[in-house]
């Protein structure tokens, strides 16, 4: 044990190379973070682009984003539950139940869209509160509780849509979410707002810390982060603003899908909650060591219930997006592989199944991987069967990386 290290304040001056070294150390120590997902995305996109040039068209890019949107949002909610080391297997069908509520209120009751949306999200909140209460107060493992709910909600969707009929959605606002696009100018404006806002936040934070004599991120690192965001976002907006209609004279098709800024907003909100609020800190604490959290005066039961509420609430949002994309709700909305894809997305993105480690961004990275596999293999003409097998293999791989990095972290004492 070496106990002769500098006083806490006099840490080495932060530099770019220092940050890079720190990152490399963490990766070697088992904290792979977003690395596997980013690596996987690059490989998958390269392979699909070579094998199927149509993969790399603006039309397919826009399609891919709306295709992955619902699963990504459900995965974002799952991150909160996974952070506690719990699981919600019912999130898929919960989204189906909420989508059914939406469709019934819109189409059968003729209520305005905002009432239907509020009711759908409220349904999700109630579902989450019920699940969380059973898990926290009765102490039944969440795996069992939500497996029961998985079956129950599947039945509930069938009952709601009256045994297999399909309720179509004609409300223009709801349909627009996953089927309409921002005017190109607005896309650029939102991106500019995002980049400038991000840069301002980072700079202000660094200035404030430096003025108090605390270790601050070097300007070069901030510039690199902001630059990366600007370039990636710029390329995406540029491609999405290209004309992708086969017949532009008849109907023009350009712009960022409306669902994209919605997801970015949820990302910012979720990241803020997890990183900048005491509530988020306590979620990590309960996931890392529930007994320590309890001794610190944190109400562990309340944390569990709230995480399930957020998860099912986000599932409701996912259900609304799925209903929008299909312009209808049927007994299979939120069914089949939705839940497994969503759990897969979170885990592939780097959220741990063992609790205590995860970010909302993971859901987006992993959701994109899942969407790319689904989309690319579809373009190559593979059947659903093959797609399931491949996605299953990728999920297993991601869970394996998670377990191995934990082992490695335990061995090196890092995490």
């Amino acid at each position, binding site marked *: 044990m070496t106990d002769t290290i500098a006083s806490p304040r006099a840490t080495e001056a932060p530099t770019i190379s220092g940050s890079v070294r720190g990152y490399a150390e963490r990766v070697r120590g088992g904290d792979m973070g977003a690395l596997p997902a980013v690596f996987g995305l690059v490989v998958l996109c390269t392979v699909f682009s070579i094998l199927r040039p149509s993969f790399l068209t603006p039309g397919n890019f826009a399609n891919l984003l709306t295709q992955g949107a619902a699963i990504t949002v459900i995965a974002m909610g799952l991150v909160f539950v996974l952070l506690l080391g719990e699981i919600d297997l019912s999130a898929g069908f919960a989204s189906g139940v909420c989508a059914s509520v939406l469709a019934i209120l819109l189409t059968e009751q003729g209520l305005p869209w905002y009432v239907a949306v509020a009711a759908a999200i409220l349904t999700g909140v109630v579902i989450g509160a019920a699940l969380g209460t059973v898990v926290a107060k009765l102490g039944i493992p969440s795996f069992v509780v939500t497996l029961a709910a998985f079956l129950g909600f599947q039945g509930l969707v069938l009952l709601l849509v009256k045994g297999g009929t399909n309720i179509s959605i004609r409300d223009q606002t709801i349909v627009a979410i996953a089927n309409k696009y921002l005017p190109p100018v607005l896309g650029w404006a939102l991106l500019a707002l995002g980049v400038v806002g991000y840069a301002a936040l980072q700079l202000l934070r660094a200035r404030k810390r430096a003025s108090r004599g605390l270790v601050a991120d070097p300007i070069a690192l901030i510039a690199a982060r902001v630059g990366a965001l600007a370039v990636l976002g710029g390329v995406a907006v540029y491609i999405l603003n290209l004309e992708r209609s086969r017949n532009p004279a008849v109907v023009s098709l350009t712009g960022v899908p409306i669902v994209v800024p919605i997801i970015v907003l949820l990302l910012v909100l979720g990241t803020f909650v997890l990183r900048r609020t005491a509530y988020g800190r306590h979620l990590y*604490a309960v996931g*890392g060591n529930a007994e320590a959290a*309890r001794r610190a005066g944190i109400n562990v039961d309340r944390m569990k219930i709230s995480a399930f509420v957020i998860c099912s609430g986000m599932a409701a949002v996912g259900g609304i997006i799925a209903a929008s994309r299909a312009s209808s709700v049927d007994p299979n909305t939120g069914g089949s592989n939705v839940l497994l894809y969503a759990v897969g997305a979170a885990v592939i993105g780097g959220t741990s199944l063992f609790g205590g480690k995860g970010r909302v961004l993971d859901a987006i990275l992993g959701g994109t991987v899942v969407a790319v596999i689904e989309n690319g293999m579809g373009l190559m003409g593979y059947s659903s069967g093959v797609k399931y097998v491949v996605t299953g293999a990728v999920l297993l791989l991601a869970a394996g990386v998670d377990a191995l990095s934990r082992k490695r972290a335990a061995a090196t004492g890092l995490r």
Partner: protein
Amino acid sequence: MTPVLELRGIDKSFGPVQVLHDVDFSVHPGEVTALVGDNGAGKSTLVKCIGGIHAVDSGEYFFDGKTVQINSPRDAAELGIEIVYQDLALCDNLDIVQNMFLGREHRRGIVLDEDTMEEMAARTLESLSVRTVKSIRQHVSSLSGGQRQTVAIAKAVLWNSKVVILDEPTAALGVAQTAQVLELVRRLADQGLAVVLISHNMNDVFAVSDRIAALYLGRMAAQVRTSDVTHAQVVELITSGRSGDLGLTNGVSA
């Protein structure tokens, strides 16, 4: 001098097993009280009752001379009682600052005030003359046993607490680190805090304590001034519950 913390007639059972029998215990400001006893005597259980981790079955709890109700860890913390548990209870996935402020984070509005917390944590570690960590932003999982112990102690003294209880803080430490922790214990008491130190090491106990309380099979065998007893007497109290006219007679306090 009135004790800052006093327990009277504490009983505590886990199911059918009664672990604490009619325990009296008092702690004085500016003093180190050593709590000794064999493994399983009930030391950690007593400490957890004080900290609000376990609810007592019966008994009275006085703080600054007034009866108080302790129903949760938060109640104890609000009185100014800080406990470094034997099993440390740190979150491996959080960094040092995050652990030190867990459950009592500083915020501005709803946003965490990381800078203030970082400054206060650094100042506390410095005031304890801790030079053992590379960065106070490193995860606790990357710390050695001694470093974790230091973080746990720093967490306890961060809060202008009145009573600090350390449950076997030196059990996993080397010679040099043990000396450091004992020095720290003495310094806290000299600053006017009431310190409770649980230890099996008689040399350590006699080196730093002002009073010794000996638990025997869940009963308080004796609570004496350290200067009034010898090593041998304390060992006898620990192993048989009595020593001469000190200790239990037929399982009841003399």
